[in-house]
């Protein structure tokens, strides 16, 4: 069996006698005898080589696609080598939450830098240290907006269905009402939104670009939300933010999103990273960790977890959220990614992704798969398709993960890692089927 216990049998015997018992079982005397487990039905422990074989065999049962044309909330982007190199450092991997600031300056400073970069991307004034993922960030954001008179949250039907599902679960807990604002032609129906903005509406969540890749009129939506006295939450793709109007420019009170595109693997859905930023009027309602700059007794600049009076370990049942961790190592990765890309590299990734997606859309239209919706889109778009099953199967057989089957067609995605050659090949395969 494998074991990570350093003490030898002889050392353990000495320790037991120092403690004053003869058997380690004596230390469990408080456990009622009838409860002690007689047989633990687990396989026998394994050597490292055996474990490696067993887990590698599982990984081998998965299919890794050479070309990925699917997004829908998880995106394959280029990850610079420096990202994994940095976040593999043992100090960063193995440390706990930076409670002891004097020996955690590296993590604290990195989070402070991450917060600064999220503010730069979103245009918002304050960022927290991150939360679990984009959907939990969205759910936490609507909780920030609740007050005694406003118990209803509105979410656009064009948001990621998983985000809406997570919001619904959080609202089942809190008792907040969740209402879905219908879509019209692949975008949020602004007239329906205005009608839904009753006096009890606390907030509206709009995703940009939306689940179908379409670019929403986020400014107009924001104006409608504010006119009704509600808070405006935008969920934005962080790569798109390199080039698109920021949530701040669109009038958002809170900006959240899934930051997996910033240097994190697809990894079957996690760990990912939820970013969360707010304007100054709302930042004290942000959940989770926040790092602040300060100085030590000698006047040196340093960093600490701050504004902790909001949090559960102080406020217990009066806390606004129970969250007490962030996705620190993922936030670290995002910070390294953004530093490596720089504003120009990020813009290039965004523009390449968008251009490839538009090329794919144009080529698909030529072979009889026109877009399902009109108007501007970023790096995702839905097309009509009569036989999505056959199309996706044909691509799959050639090592290509096609788009996601959605109501009425297929939702496609292209990013900077897809070459023109790959797109042409995929289109040729689809042409054979259609």
């Amino acid at each position, binding site marked *: 069996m494998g074991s990570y216990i350093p003490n030898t049998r002889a050392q353990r015997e000495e320790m037991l006698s120092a403690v004053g018992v003869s058997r380690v079982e004596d230390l469990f005397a408080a456990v009622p005898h009838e409860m002690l487990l007689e047989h633990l039905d687990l396989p026998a422990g394994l050597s490292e080589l055996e474990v490696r074989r067993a887990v590698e065999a599982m990984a081998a*049962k998965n299919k890794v696609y050479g070309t990925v044309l699917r997004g829908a909330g998880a995106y394959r982007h280029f990850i610079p080598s420096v990202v994994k190199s940095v976040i593999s450092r043992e100090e960063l*991997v193995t440390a706990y939450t930076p409670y002891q600031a004097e020996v955690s300056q590296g993590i604290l400073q990195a989070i402070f830098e991450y917060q600064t970069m999220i503010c730069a991307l979103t245009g918002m004034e304050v960022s927290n240290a991150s939360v679990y993922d984009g959907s939990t960030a969205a759910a936490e954001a609507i909780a920030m907006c609740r007050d005694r008179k406003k118990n209803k949250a509105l979410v656009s039907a064009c948001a990621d269905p998983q985000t809406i599902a997570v919001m619904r679960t959080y609202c*089942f807990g809190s008792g907040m009402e969740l209402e879905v604002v219908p879509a019209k032609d692949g975008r949020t129906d602004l007239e329906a939104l205005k009608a839904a903005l009753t006096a009890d509406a606390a907030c509206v969540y709009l995703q940009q670009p939306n689940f179908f890749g379409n670019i929403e009129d986020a400014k107009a939506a924001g104006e409608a939300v504010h006119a009704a006295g509600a808070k405006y939450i935008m969920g934005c793709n962080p790569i798109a933010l390199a080039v698109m109007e920021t949530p701040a420019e669109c009038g958002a009170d809170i900006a959240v999103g899934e930051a997996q595109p910033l240097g994190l693997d697809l990894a079957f*859905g*996690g760990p990912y990273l939820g970013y969360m930023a707010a304007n100054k009027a709302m930042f004290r309602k942000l959940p989770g960790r926040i790092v602040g700059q300060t100085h*030590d007794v000698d006047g040196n600049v340093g960093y600490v977890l701050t504004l902790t009076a909001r949090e559960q370990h102080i406020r217990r049942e009066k806390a606004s959220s129970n969250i007490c961790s962030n996705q620190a190592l993922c936030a670290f990765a995002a910070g390294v990614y953004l530093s490596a890309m720089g504003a120009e590299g990020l*813009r290039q990734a965004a523009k390449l992704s968008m251009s490839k997606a538009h090329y794919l859309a144009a080529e698909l239209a030529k072979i009889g798969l026109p877009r399902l919706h009109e108007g501007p889109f970023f790096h995702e778009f839905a097309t009509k398709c009569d036989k999505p099953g056959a199309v996706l199967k044909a691509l799959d057989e050639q090592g290509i993960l096609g788009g996601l089957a959605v109501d009425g067609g297929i939702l496609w995605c292209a990013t900077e890692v897809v070459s023109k050659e790959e797109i042409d090949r995929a289109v040729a395969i689809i042409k054979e089927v259609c």
Partner: protein
Amino acid sequence: MKLIFEKGAPGQHLSLLPACDVPEVEIVSPRAEAPELPHLSETELTRHYTALAKRVHGVNDGFYPLGSCTMKYNPKINEDMANLPGFTNIHPLQPEETVQGCLEVLHTSAKLLGEITGMDAMTFQPAAGAHGEFTGLLLIKAYHKNRGDSARTKIIVPDSAHGTNPASAVMAGFTVVNVPSGPDGCVDVEALRSAVGPDTAGLMLTNPNTVGIFDRNILEITKIIHDAGGLCYYDGANLNAVMGVVRPGDMGFDVIHLNLHKTFSTPHGGGGPGAGAVGCKALLAPFLPGPVVEKNENGYRLAVPEHSIGRVKNFCGNFGVVVRALTYVLTLGQEGIPEAAKNAVLNANYMMKRLSEKYTMAYAGPCMHEFVMDLQDLKAATGCSAMDIAKGLLDHGIHPPTMYFPLIVHEALMIEPTETESRETMDEACDVFLALWDLAHETPQALHDAPVKTPVRRLDEVGAARNPVLKYTPND
């Protein structure tokens, strides 16, 4: 140390992406200005992060006896397995037949961890312990609701509980009833008996509790709750003390969360990502978040339980963390799991015994995997607080224990060595603890001034909260 924004120069960059090979498209509603991001060469960039990493104390830098956090060694094989391309390159929305390996990881993990905890079903969607608590409480809420019992609105929480317990209960829409602990740090059974009623939805409990004691009345406690019609939630933060020895399911618990990043050796990453797997008895399985993994003759498939509370997170949770935990459980196996628990308890008792020479223990031993010292008498005699001792440890390369928790002990230091520390390491640490006790009596000012060898010294936390500086702003 300079911030990354203060390094490099405009124009410095890495060469990462190729030229565009398709017609370029312009954005219709562009942002007014480019985001202000760092601009460095690869040399300067990597040096910056190497310098940051050096300003962090991790488990691999030295002893880390942070109570309640189970800072055990993080095996390297776990990292290798999680980083296999067959896992890292898998899109979460791939067809089921192309992700059979991922589903096998989740299904096998649920089975093995279910056996260790005595639970029938499990979800890996929750991303952290607190997230697991929230999920578990929603299961309890949905269970009562489904039975048409809407009167059960209260969750009972002992005053020794982690702060997340009451905070999670409120997020789940419950009212919190705090029950006091007895003088032994355990649940006051009579107080509990008088707290339950037809409005009791459930109880949240850690066992061993937050003072490191196994509550010997546990069967009576869970029976009181069940007799009142409530359910019992097990906060798995302290499972490392008892895994393979006694199971929460056999103690009478109906639902639990596991901190895979504590008990099952996955790294903490400086505050995440973790994983807060939630296990439950069969009666709660129909309410689990969906999808869960099922197995049939054709292999594994994803399915949504009949009365699912819905999603608590995207996709299947922090999958990469589950791979690490599974690797660990497969490594230790049937013998290794209880062996780890027993050695965690032995190590804690050994340190407790040695430190009892000078320090006052909040509760008499034997302890389980951790113990709490109460430094009130030291503070009265010397003016040196638990905080001062903690800061003194920093100068000796030891990460301090958990300070000022649980709240029922005023000058608390909570020590959890874990099973992966050697006697040699613990002896050296005990020598330091005992020397600091003497130092507190001889030159207390030296401890008030500590630390002096760390990259920065004590930081002004009050000032940080009063005038929050939460991002970098260029001077000019």
